[in-house]
């Protein structure tokens, strides 16, 4: 038991001290006889304070440390390291959360907040009184990363990870790589086509001996944990032999003969495709695929092509990895029927369909057999919804819509663009694109948040009626040939991976990082990283930046071959154990086995498999199990201090 505890109470600038009387907290806790010194500080985390704490520990021989400040999720390690530098075991340190769970939560009742802070700090002091010195557990780690999703973020991070020395398994659910990027033709800012960018990345991946790509592949289960994940992957066959050398003429004939026609998702339903398909001729991997869901096995293609093989079976692979990176991207928002005339008024399409339409129309812009001259764009469809669920801004769409308008104007003759917007957000250098579009004759009309445009049909095309902000709500009618709904990003509909890995989901329903500034690509699940648009809307550059960041983090986590883990483990007191076996039954990791001890059979915890969840501790009828760091005496003395 300790009797020389140092207590530091942080003002957090004014975040804490505005509501909690930190001097009073100090005064009261200092009267505890086990508290040797107590101080208040403006910023406990500032380097000078860290030095002061370390010096106090060393000079005064403190045997325990309590810092009352923000949530331990932010600075637990900061102060553990202070303890280490001062030769105090880091597990004799307790961080008390008097910001998120006290000053901020009770900013309406400063007196009560102060009372609560006192109790919380006392509980921390009593916890540290009984804490024991511990060493981190060291486990070996695979220098391998499973990257899920081979869009731009996944492909790019796979290359970087391999370049940095990690083995990579790149898992793609579709039969082809490139994700959304391959669906976009010209890209802002460089004018490259999405498929060119994808082709170049694919070639780098294929030539990299440390990257293994699986297409038609889906993660079906996860075992193990950071350093040693076991990932089970199900692979759906292409039903075409791998040695197939694609002959385009022959492929054309096969396409002709295939009787199945389905909606082409790659073109967002603008066209149909066959059950055997490639989304575009230069798509990678080179070999076409047969869409298992729609093929009726008529066998007509077999007559033309000996490489087709319906004997291929679904395979399951087990992969070992030290870390996981999720780059599963986004879905475009799908407007409801009737939302801005979608599916109820002719010639109303989404931005994503528009991009495919440009790709499919070489010389003239034709939709439904009609030549298009007047194009309208309605912004923030599915984003910034005043009444709907999506309160967020989808970030990329203003620039994307203006750029699409620019491409249309430059590619085809006599195009007039109208942009019905809610305040253009071409942030940063993108501003020039907006500026140039205005200069080149695009018309921008801003509507009110509470008065959205009405879409009707004028017989020949869609008609937009809006109250224009810039002319003080004057009603304006614009007749168009084609109306494009600038649909934003939403999280992927199919997200089994989130359930399998338990990835936390944020308020906007995208995957959530630990902290946007401190740990922007890590999740609370150790070893699971996120990047790209699965985390929040991002453009390509931003997705790639986050993908590379995640690659750097994952690599530095596992590349040393060894990972340090928290020493939170269950420990069984063999003299108390009567081998009831309840702990063995409940343990989700099979970490408890039986051994012979003192002439009887007792349970024992296997240190390398125990994850420290503590599920075994309440079920033991003899109370023979303690969870290190959460022992009865620690928890019960905290309870006593809190009352």
């Amino acid at each position, binding site marked *: 038991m300790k009797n020389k505890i140092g207590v530091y109470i942080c*003002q*957090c*600038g*004014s*975040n804490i001290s505005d509501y909690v009387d930190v001097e009073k907290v100090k005064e009261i806790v200092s009267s505890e006889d086990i508290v040797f010194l107590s101080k208040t500080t*403006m*910023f406990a*985390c500032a*380097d*000078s304070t860290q030095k002061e704490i370390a010096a106090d520990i060393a000079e005064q021989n403190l045997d325990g440390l309590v810092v009352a400040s923000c949530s331990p999720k932010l600075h637990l390690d*900061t102060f553990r390291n202070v303890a280490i530098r001062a030769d105090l075991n880091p597990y004799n340190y307790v961080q008390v959360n008097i910001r998120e769970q006290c000053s901020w939560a009770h900013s309406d009742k400063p007196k009560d907040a102060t009372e609560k802070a006192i109790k919380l700090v006392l509980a921390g002091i009593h916890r540290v009184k009984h804490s024991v010195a511990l060493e981190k557990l060291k486990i070996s780690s695979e220098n391998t990363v499973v990257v899920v999703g081979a869009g*731009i973020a996944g492909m790019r991070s796979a290359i*970087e990870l391999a*370049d*940095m020395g990690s083995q990579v398994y790149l898992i793609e659910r579709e039969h082809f790589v490139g994700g959304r990027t391959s669906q976009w033709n010209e*890209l802002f800012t460089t004018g490259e086509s999405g498929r060119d*960018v994808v082709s*170049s990345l694919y070639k780098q991946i294929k030539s990299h001996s440390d990257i293994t790509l699986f297409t038609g592949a889906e993660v079906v289960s996860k075992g193990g944990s950071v350093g040693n994940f076991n990932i089970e992957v199900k692979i759906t066959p292409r039903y075409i032999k791998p040695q197939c050398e694609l002959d385009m003429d022959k492929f054309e004939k096969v396409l002709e003969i295939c009787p199945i026609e389905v909606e082409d998702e790659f073109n967002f339903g603008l066209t149909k495709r066959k059950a055997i398909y490639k989304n575009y001729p230069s798509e990678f991997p080179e070999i076409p695929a047969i869409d298992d869901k729609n093929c009726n096995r008529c066998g007509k293609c077999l007559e033309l092509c000996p490489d087709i093989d319906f004997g291929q079976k679904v395979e399951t692979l087990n992969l070992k990895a030290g870390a996981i990176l999720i780059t599963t991207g986004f879905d475009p928002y799908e407007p409801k029927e009737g939302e801005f005339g979608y599916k109820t008024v002719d010639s109303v399409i989404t931005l994503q369909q528009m991009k495919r339409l440009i790709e499919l129309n070489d010389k003239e812009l034709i939709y439904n057999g009609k030549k298009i001259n007047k194009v309208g764009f309605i912004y923030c469809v599915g984003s*910034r919804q005043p009444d709907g669920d999506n*309160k*967020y*801004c989808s*970030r990329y769409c203003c620039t994307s819509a203006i750029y699409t308008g620019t491409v249309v104007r430059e590619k085809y003759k006599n195009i007039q663009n109208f942009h019905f917007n809610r*305040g253009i*957000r*071409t*942030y*940063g*250098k993108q*501003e*020039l694109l907006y*500026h140039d579009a205005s200069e080149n004759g695009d018309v921008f009309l801003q509507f009110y948040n509470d008065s959205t445009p009405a879409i009707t049909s004028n017989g020949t095309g869609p008609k937009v009626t809006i109250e224009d*902000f*810039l*002319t*003080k709500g004057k009603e304006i009618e614009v007749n168009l040939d084609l109306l494009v709904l600038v649909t934003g990003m939403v999280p992927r509909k199919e997200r089994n991976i989130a359930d399998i890995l338990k990835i936390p989901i944020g*308020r*906007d329903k*995208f995957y959530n990082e630990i902290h*946007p*500034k*401190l740990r*922007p*690509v890590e999740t609370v699940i150790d070893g699971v990283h996120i990047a790209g648009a699965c985390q*929040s*809307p991002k453009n390509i*550059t*931003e997705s*790639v*930046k*986050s993908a*590379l*960041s*995640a*690659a*750097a*983090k994952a*690599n*530095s986590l596992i*590349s040393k071959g060894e990972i340090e883990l928290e020493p939170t483990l269950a420990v069984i007191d063999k003299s108390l154990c009567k081998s009831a076996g309840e702990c063995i039954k409940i343990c989700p990791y099979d970490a408890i086995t039986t051994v012979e001890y003192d002439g009887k059979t007792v349970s024992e915890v296997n240190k390398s498999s125990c994850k420290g969840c503590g599920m075994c501790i309440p079920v033991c009828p003899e109370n023979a199990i303690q969870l290190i760091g959460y022992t009865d005496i620690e928890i019960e003395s905290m309870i006593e201090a809190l009352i």
Partner: protein
Amino acid sequence: MSDQTNNYDVLVVGGGIAGEETALNLANIGYKVIMVEKDLSLGGKMIHLSKVFPTLDCSACITTPKVSETARHPNIHIFTNSEVGEIEKISENNFNAVLTEKPRYVTEECTGCQLCEDACPVSVDDQFQYELVGRKAIYIPFSIANPRIAAIDIENCILCGLCEKVCPGDYIDFRQVEKKTPINVKSVVMATGYELFDPTIITRYGFGKFKNVVTAMQMERQLVPTRPYNSVLRPKDGKMPDNIAYVLCTGSRDDTVGNPICSQVCCMYSTKQAQLLMGALPMADVTIYYIHIRAFGKGFCEFYNQTQGMGVEFIKGKIGKIDEVDDGDLILRYEDIESGKVKEAKHDLVVLATGILANKDYQSMFKNIELEADPFNYVKQTNDLSSPARTSIGGVFVAGTASGPMDIPDSILSAGAASAETASYLRRANNEK
């Protein structure tokens, strides 16, 4: 210093948040990093901010631990108050450069006791408080500075020697001279940050002439916990303002000042300051004059909606001219875009949301090769889409606002990208040997 210690894997130019993030990532992988910071202490601009959007975390709580982690990392060697120049590419993985350490006239043993500050008779404007208050000719840059060592501003020092007399440890050393050291590195990361737009250029806003027209950075300093006045006051008469105006796009999206692009952060930092002002001055009205509100990042739009809900007024209007009336109040003439009419409004404090400009320092750092600039003088990204940290020189990468305006979360991701690309460059070159 021996030859061996002058060889590093990576030179990181700039010790702001992007430089620190890059250096830490690379040092954690095991590379040896030299970080060169021109200011007296680390933390760049971020360490001076109050709370940061959209989480309203205090900025110091995010930066200072990163600063101390950087300062303490065994693989990172830091030079503050120093510059780097004559960077020369010899071959891949082989750059020479010259490190110039400027004298601080105080030795590294300084304990930061500040007795010298009390003794010094010279007072000058404090650049870290954005000229809101004064400081001495010998000074510690700011309370949470790292390193927390005094320095003498020799231009203003009158060499009276009082500091030498009071220093308890004999740490004042007027004999220090500038020191140049050649270094060799395998790669370079430019994390040189940005400059703030100087609003005196827009004379019609009266900045510098009307005391109650301040910049957002000056307001930021009034809102931080280490603030000079411990309250928000208007400079002219020390009165607490109760009707504050924000002028967005000051020096941004403005061809007439040569900066046609959007600065990406001003809408959000103004919105954030408005929220903080509502807390600091519950009775005050805050009006934000804007062209478009760019609340685009994760959680930003929600934050903007929340600010509107708190009662901050947003007026879509461009400010033409600001005039002062007798009591120091200000008349803003603006084009109200909604009505199309020119209107006037009276406020007792005006905050100019000044934009971000390129820091062009990097342009004179290279010797036999040019680091190309984009049209706005930022470091040019040569493969914007798939390799955002790559520049016109192989082995030289860019992190943070050196390549364009961005907010803190984006700077940190950009630094992550720069560290990944640098690490693979180093390893590729190693493997080819």
